[in-house]
């Protein structure tokens, strides 16, 4: 048993060490890119959790992502409230808003749910865009800085990366536990057949509301990191194209897999960095990759690898990637 697990444990330790020591061997921009992966990862997890576990495609999550940023800008920067008050108030605000919106939205399913959340998202965006007295319209709020905590200055990129990494790992672990908990299973049940779950006596409506809340909380957490990292919060943070971009990450990685959003974020953010250095047609290239992926594997990159492992696609690649599984059959 131990022997079987040893390579996996070694790999895990190697990754952990590589990730933790990243600021020591990688360039500054690589760290910045990983920070982007971490906060977009939160947003992707938020959207991916709803799609994968609850079967709900939400277009409001990006608004929650921007919500905490705006609260930090308004209360932390402009009114001078000290850490962690604006952050906690922001998250509380996100939960409250998500509760109200969720109670309306989760009554609907599938495409209707999508349209309602799209409308909510657009309302937030239009408000942020047009409100000049409080949210400064198009210009947004700039000059947001991460706090100094216990003598650690999080304005320093490496410190910020470590902080974000710890938060992300905790968040991942918690979401993993939620997914595998009885609640997660019940949520999966409502995804597959809400009527049957209701017939079994489960409060389907509230289960979906809670899932919406959990997802909103993750989006809000990512928003805090994003606002600190870019130093600004503007309506473009919550515009529709951003939502679609993150949705694309989730689907590219594999929306039905727990790790799908994370894989998608890593791939898309790195593609962004690498491709934008070569050509300005970043969106074209990512679009082509997206179309190809969805054509060959509707379940994203992880789905593709899963298919290969099970021998359903590309048997030759399978032999190369999974020699044991291939020879075992």
């Amino acid at each position, binding site marked *: 048993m131990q022997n079987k697990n040893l390579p996996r444990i070694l790999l*895990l330790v190697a*990754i952990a060490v*590589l990730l933790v020591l990243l600021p020591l061997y990688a360039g500054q921009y690589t760290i910045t890119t990983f920070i982007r992966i971490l906060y977009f990862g939160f947003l992707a997890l938020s959207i991916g959790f709803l799609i994968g576990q609850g079967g709900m495609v939400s277009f409001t999550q990006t608004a929650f992502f921007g919500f905490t940023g705006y609260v930090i800008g308004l209360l932390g920067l402009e009114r001078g409230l000290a850490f962690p008050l604006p952050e906690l108030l922001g998250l509380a605000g996100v939960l409250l808003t998500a509760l109200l919106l969720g109670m309306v939205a989760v009554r609907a399913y599938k495409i209707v749910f999508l349209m309602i959340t799209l409308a909510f998202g657009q309302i937030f965006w239009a408000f942020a865009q047009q409100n000049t*007295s409080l949210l400064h319209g198009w210009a947004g709020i700039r000059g947001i800085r991460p706090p100094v905590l216990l003598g650690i200055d999080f304005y320093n990129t490496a410190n910020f990366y470590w902080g974000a990494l710890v938060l992300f790992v905790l968040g991942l672990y918690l979401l993993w536990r939620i997914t595998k908990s009885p609640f997660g299973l019940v949520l999966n049940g409502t995804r597959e057949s809400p009527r049957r779950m209701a017939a079994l006596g489960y409060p389907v409506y509230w289960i979906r509301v809670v899932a919406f809340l959990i997802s909103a909380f993750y989006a809000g957490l990512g928003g805090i990191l994003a606002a600190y990292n870019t130093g600004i919060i503007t309506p473009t943070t919550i515009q529709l194209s951003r939502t679609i971009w993150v949705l694309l990450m989730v689907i590219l990685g594999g929306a039905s897999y727990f790790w799908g959003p994370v894989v998608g974020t890593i791939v898309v953010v*790195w593609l962004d960095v690498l491709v934008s250095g070569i050509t300005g047609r970043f969106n074209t290239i990512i679009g082509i990759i997206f179309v190809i992926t969805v054509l060959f594997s509707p379940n994203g990159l992880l789905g593709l*690898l899963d298919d290969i492992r099970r021998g359903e696609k590309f048997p030759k690649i399978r032999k190369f990637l999974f020699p044991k599984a291939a020879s075992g059959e």
Partner: protein
Amino acid sequence: MSRKLFSIFSTLIVVSMLLAACATATPTTAPAESKPAESTGEIKIGFISAFTGVFSSFGKMQKEGAELALEEVGYTAGGKKITVIYEDDQLDNEQAVTKAKKLVEQDKVDILTGLVSGDEGLTVGDYMKDKGIPLIPMYSASEDMTMRSFFPMTVRATWTGAQSMDVFGYWLATEKGYKKIYMIGEDYSYPWNQAGGFKRGFCRGGGVEVKSVWFPPGTTSDFSSMIAAIPLDQGYDAVLYNGAGGDAVNFIKQWSELGMVGKIPLLGQSNTFEKPDLDSMPKDIVGSLSPHHTADDLNTPNWNAFKDAFVKKYGYSPSAASEFAYMSMRMILRAIEAVKGDVSDKAKLVDAMLKVDLSDTPRGPVALDPTYHSAIENVYIREVTADDKGALYNKGILTVKNVSQFGPYDPALYMSQPIDGNTYPPDLCADFPAEMLQAANIYEYLPFGK
């Protein structure tokens, strides 16, 4: 299943970290990058602009202007090769910061330039504050970059939003005798700043009211209700359209279609009647006035030389955005020349930029304010005119020399005022702070070309 997936996920992280290692390894292996650049003779200039999106035409014009200046010196200055790295921010402030981070952290640029919109400038400026790298905004006109949020690595040899408008408003009030203006403006920072400058000048010259109506930019293509709402019977002397780009083209077209021409004079802000938008506007708006730091019929040797070179390379006439980029890039190149290509001391480089002789700037002589690193230059009041082929252009009618970003006001007093917005300055001149109205006029309005 999840175990396998986990291992796949882990491999992905490892791969991306390998990528990371590669990305960081290149500068050390490739001789022409990063630190060793000083010895091998390369200077890197980062150029952020909006090459896609609503303002893409401005981004393109900027790039063309900058490239013309670079080609003139064959991409070398002070014995060093000049490399420009262009990044597109799609006019998205968040993208602008991301790209600035990329240019500073990965490409390790020596100078950062470009920037179209005022908000872009302020956002990137906020990030660049403590980076110790010169920031040279080109078309970005938010006055606070060289005022309330000024940091000494900024050098802006171009303009601020209020700079051209103050003298224009003053002239309309004193010479034209206008008392009341009806203004329709796009609700964001650049038009606010233009309106601020206009109101200050107009009220200082004895005006009574600048009625402001704001609308969110890019949200409508139907301005008929806005135009119909203009109260023609309430004694307004003119309508000032305070917007630019696609909105301006739509507005002006509908202005003409709804038969407003001749009923009340139309005024523009600096960008309203700029080319290439002007080419899409109806011909009957001739006579509309606007101020800018360039005019299409400037007939000076410097302007003609620039214009000829530009037309020869691109096949059409330059705009203000291309001139601003051209002269900013030329200032950068001359400063690099002055420090003999040694750009390691950035403070020295900024100092050299401030000392560059800009008297041969195509649009007219420019001097730099040593305190706030902003331009002191000519303002031209122009009239939309049709040439013999019927094409519209901005014909200069008056020249105002040596206008600074503070106009005739005391800098300390000016900066103690709130930032221009959609609620400040007030619409009624009577509500203005008295000390702002008392500033004496220090400008002479000379016939154009003198």
